[in-house]
């Protein structure tokens, strides 16, 4: 019996090998090969408007399974929305865009595999990866290959430092922490005793916290308590909140995502009554709190986009997103960042005047990275410009949650 199992296993192993070797033959074939793999990017439109420029495959990588799936799903949808809009309007310079989005489970190892797979699928440029850790791993590979990449949301400093082929749509972590400290020092100037709760197992959260502390010291803010939590114990915050109460803080800084923020707000109810300032991870707060949204009244968030914001661009994007994905939840900032990434890439392609989708990815990269520093793109998440190191310049946007009649919305300050 055991032998039989082993034989079956060996046969299966052989089959796997055969499959992978068979896969090799597809490597490097022209972009038409990717039809078989069904990137859902253009689907119906591709047949009708496929211009003479051919199909340009845009790769995407992010977590669509696992604990961070919400971020990857939003990026994927945001990309899909932008790509379909562009294709419906006739593509870019006669080229149709096609998306191939791969799951990385928020794991650098899986992310590199996904990247390699996309290269086999004739990817010409990468939008991703979504999360910082994987982004650092993939960007090194992309630099080696001279593959153009722009991450919508990989915010750690090192996510784009491997080479000049990497760009970023959002602020980096220390930059964000600095902006938050400036905001508290200038706009909430009477609040000098700051308490921080951050995710000590997460690079995003730790990065913002470190940037914040550095600037806070320079601006005369006093960080009186700094409490961490880890992704393994992110449900109960009673001990951390108790520490904040005991230390009489003036303002609570939360450089974390909205899921944990929602829990902290609920557990701090009636215990801690201080203004809360959060990072760009807080825009989903209203959506997740639903009928308890009153708890979030007055929370400040440094976020470039929110589904409840009332400015024209945000409203237009939110409506288009909801129309395209009626079953999905309200978009979060990740979706807007990804949407902007696609349009920024489009602008760069137009600037560089690339007309042929059969261009090699390396040549495309050289042209795009020159074009990126020349374009100015007015997107959902703000008016953006890029420097040669890949960092974006845009105005920080601090919004505050206002709750009226049980409905929350983010309003600009």
């Amino acid at each position, binding site marked *: *019996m*055991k032998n*039989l*199992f*082993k034989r079956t*296993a*060996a046969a*299966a*192993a052989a089959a*796997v*090998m055969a*499959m*992978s*070797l068979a*896969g*090799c033959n*597809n*490597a490097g074939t022209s972009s038409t090969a990717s039809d078989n*793999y*069904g*990137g*859902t990017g253009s689907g119906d439109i591709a047949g009708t408007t496929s211009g003479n420029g051919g199909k340009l495959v845009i790769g995407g990588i992010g977590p*669509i*399974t696992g604990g961070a799936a919400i971020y990857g799903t939003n990026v994927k949808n945001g990309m899909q929305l932008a790509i379909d809009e562009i294709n419906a309007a006739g593509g870019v310079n006669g080229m149709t865009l096609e998306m*191939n*989005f*791969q*799951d990385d*489970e928020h*794991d*650098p*190892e899986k992310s*590199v*595999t*996904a990247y*390699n*797979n996309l*290269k*086999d699928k004739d990817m010409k440029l990468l939008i991703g990866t979504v999360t910082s*850790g994987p982004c*650092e*791993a993939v960007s*090194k*590979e992309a630099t080696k290959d001279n593959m153009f990449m722009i991450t919508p949301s990989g915010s*750690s400093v*090192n996510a784009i430092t*491997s080479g000049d082929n990497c760009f970023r749509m959002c602020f980096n972590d220390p930059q964000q922490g600095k902006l938050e400290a400036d905001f508290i020092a200038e706009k909430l100037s009477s609040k000098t005793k700051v308490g921080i709760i951050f995710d*000590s*197992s*997460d*690079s995003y959260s*730790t*990065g913002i916290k*470190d940037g914040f502390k550095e600037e806070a010291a320079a601006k005369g803010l006093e960080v009186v308590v700094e409490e*961490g939590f*880890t*992704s*393994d114990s992110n449900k109960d915050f009673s001990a951390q909140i108790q520490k904040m109460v005991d230390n009489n803080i003036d303002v609570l800084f939360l450089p974390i995502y909205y899921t944990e923020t929602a829990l902290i707000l609920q557990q701090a109810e009636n215990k801690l009554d201080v203004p809360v300032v959060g990072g760009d991870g807080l825009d989903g707060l209203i959506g997740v709190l639903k009928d308890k949204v009153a708890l979030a009244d007055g929370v400040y968030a440094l976020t470039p986009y929110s589904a409840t914001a009332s400015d024209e661009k945000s409203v237009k994007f939110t409506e288009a997103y909801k129309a395209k994905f009626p079953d999905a939840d309200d978009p979060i900032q990740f979706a807007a960042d990804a949407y902007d990434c696609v349009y920024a890439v489009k602008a760069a392609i137009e600037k560089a005047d690339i007309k042929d989708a059969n261009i090699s990815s390396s040549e495309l990269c050289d042209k795009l990275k020159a074009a990126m520093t020349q374009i100015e793109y007015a997107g959902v998440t703000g008016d953006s410009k890029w420097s040669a190191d890949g960092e974006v310049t845009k105005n920080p946007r601090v919004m505050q949650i206002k709750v009226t009649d049980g409905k929350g919305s983010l309003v600009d300050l």
Partner: protein
Amino acid sequence: MRKVTKNNLITFGGTTALLAVLGVLMAMGKLNNMVSGLTVTIGIYIIASTSLNLTVGVLGELSLGHAGFMCIGAFSSATVSQMLMNVGGVPQWLVFTLAILFGAVCAAIMGVLIGIPVMRLRGDYLAIVTLGFGEIMKSLFNNIYLTQDVNGLHFGFTNPPQNIDAATKVEILRGPMGTSAPGLTNFWVVAAVLLVCLLILMMFIDSKSGRACMAVRDNYIAAQSVGINVTKFRLMAFTLSAAIAGVAGALYMHSLSNMLPKKFDYNLSILILVYVVLGGLGSLRGSIIATIILYALPELLRNINQEIVNARMLIYAIILIFLMLWKNAPFFINLREKIKAKFKKDKATDVTSGGAEA
């Protein structure tokens, strides 16, 4: 030839042949990017799963903390390789060899330290202690910062060290931000290390100590009564398993340009355990085959279409359950027997009819 020797020869020869084929194909540029990337990762996982097989299969103890040893191997080796690279002038192969060895030694030391108390426990209690150990290691490296500057090394616990000379600052360990070791791991290194590790494991299992371990596994009290120093042999096997896991960790660390301590959580331990159990307890060949299939499976599912990409972990789960049932459930065992019997019959009739024609 002894059955064991023959078996080992098949496993070792098969692995060598497979690696050689892959190597030739890679040198000829016939492998696509994903497959050549996967060969490295799968090789590392094979080292990890065969070493865990020593604890689970040969020693008969459930360990849920194998990732903890990989974690130590990974971060200690990264410290060495980064420091040596910063010194400069040391050839890369030497840096990497020293780093791997250091990772193995650190993991082995931790194996002894944790092994002494743990080997007093058995069964599920041992499992839970190893699980705890793995989580402690992850948590520890999440809080360790090590920075080098002109004044030497600076160590920080739970917070980055302060007062660093910014101009000469090199961050070696960065707590939750991860650690960036030089990317020294490639296919050839993994292939060579894999074969060496396999050889060591085979030699150990077939040695007097290995057989003593199996005697302890099969009957603890009987083994004790014939004078086997139970704790000594158990500790020996546990430490060897830890050391090789450390090697796997070191290779893993140097295969990606950024590694977060988060990666080495109990999910990784369980992933490797799945390979070992599906491959068959005590069978190195089984571990190798199971690792290849189960690792490659979800990755190859990427190639079908976007819907499958979303659902591939679901498919993986179903296949996992099915494989376990296929191997162990009476219903499937009977089914397999029937199919086997049918094939034999067919063959038998074929032979007779063939003979008649001739």
